[in-house]
């Protein structure tokens, strides 16, 4: 029963949401809106809260014995301070909550991402080798792409720009399209398997 009831629920919701796609009847539209807004959004929000609680639990467990306890404390301070600011002063544009977001979170997060530029440069020198013909093709495509988007149109023939654009619009796009079609077919079959109860990995391992 521990696994059967969730499978039945998944089947019912799956079939209902699949069938409503083809109906414009007001009852179908009402059910669709109810499931999407009332069930899906609300349950997902609780799932996010569970994630936050799990993070707090993991961070606080053994904090007094952990070598990285100052860092854990700083993380916990952030988790506590942000809701505190929101409760006391609200979350609108000029509030302390948004001040922390704009002057602490945004700079930190975008700078962490900016580090990737350096690692890309390093990888370009140390790892990007034309060791084989396919690797040389990859390298060549990357080379003409970067060159053609470098605002140096006056320095090389216009044909290179056109060629780079053609490569992106046709052979590159074709490969990406094939990947998309493959993912689409795979997602389709996995969704069917989930609804029909063939795919049960989402239920976890414990209850057999």
């Amino acid at each position, binding site marked *: 029963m521990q696994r059967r009831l969730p499978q039945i629920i998944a089947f019912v919701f799956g079939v209902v949401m699949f069938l409503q796609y083809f109906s414009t009847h007001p009852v179908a539209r009402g059910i669709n809106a109810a499931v999407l807004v009332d069930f899906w*959004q609300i349950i997902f*929000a609780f799932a996010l809260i569970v994630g936050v609680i799990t993070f707090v639990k993991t961070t606080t467990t053994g904090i007094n014995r952990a070598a990285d306890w100052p860092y854990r404390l700083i993380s916990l301070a952030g988790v506590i301070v942000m809701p505190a600011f929101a409760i006391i002063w609200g979350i609108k544009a000029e509030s302390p909550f948004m001040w922390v977001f704009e002057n602490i979170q945004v700079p930190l997060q975008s700078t962490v991402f900016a580090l990737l530029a350096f690692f890309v440069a390093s990888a370009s020198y140390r790892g990007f080798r034309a060791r084989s013909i396919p690797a040389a093709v990859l390298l060549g495509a990357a080379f003409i792409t970067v060159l053609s988007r470098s605002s140096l149109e006056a320095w090389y023939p216009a044909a290179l720009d056109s060629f780079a654009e053609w490569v992106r619009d046709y052979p590159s*796009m074709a490969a990406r399209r094939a990947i998309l079609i493959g993912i689409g077919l795979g997602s389709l079959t996995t969704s069917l398997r989930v609804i029909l109860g063939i795919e049960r990995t989402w239920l976890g391992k414990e209850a057999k």
Partner: protein
Amino acid sequence: MKLEGRHWIFLGLFAAVFIAMALNLGLDVAVSGDTQGMYEFIDTLSPGSTIIVSFDHEASALPEIRPLALAVLRHAFSRNVRVIGTALLAEGTGVGYRLMQQTAREFGKDYGSDWVYLGFKPQYIAAILSMGESFSRTYPEDYLGQVYSDLPLLNDINTYDDIAGVVSVADGSLTTHWIEYAGSRYNVKIAGAVTAAMITTYDPYLASGQMDAMVGGLRGAAEYEKLIKTGGGGERGMLAQTVSHLYVLALIVVGNLAYFLTRRKPKEGRG
């Protein structure tokens, strides 16, 4: 302080970009077909029509997303297009409101009648699909806590049938969901203002017509700024971007030369 090989590469990149930014020279950019398409997507909207601009990005992409978003919003407001802002990622919420507020102020647009910010809803697929049923049910209140029905702009907006299109400002695959769920199910026109890394991801949708327009990256922002005749972060970053690209290309060439030369030497030694 001991510097290793990779540190010199890092310093080289830092120096190249620093010098380019210190020179502060403008670079003329040729407008690409994609950017022209995005420009026409907004330019052909009739004054008074309404679009959704959805901030579907993380804070990490802001340096690249910001010039794009500002250019699109400026163009829309200059055409007297009404804009509804939403966010399908939590971090886009605060950023989106600030950007809309900034550009609305530039054009003297009033909140509630010319623009509205609805805020964030998690579970983006549910949010996109439920907006197709009812905007007001998905967003009973706006980001500022005002009731949906109290906002004049939203009086005649309740489903995708009432809007001219969606511009998804994204650094990931959320635009795909707009295309596949809103575009496919509800026939909404979808355009993307995306980071450069995502351009090739959306090429098949652009080619098949499922996506109406796309502008990408800092270069795309510079091209768009040229079309709407304003300056901005895109234009300012072009020299630095060009120099950084040349630096990476030089590293690729030098790295491969070093590889092929050192690969040959052991063979010569054995012979």
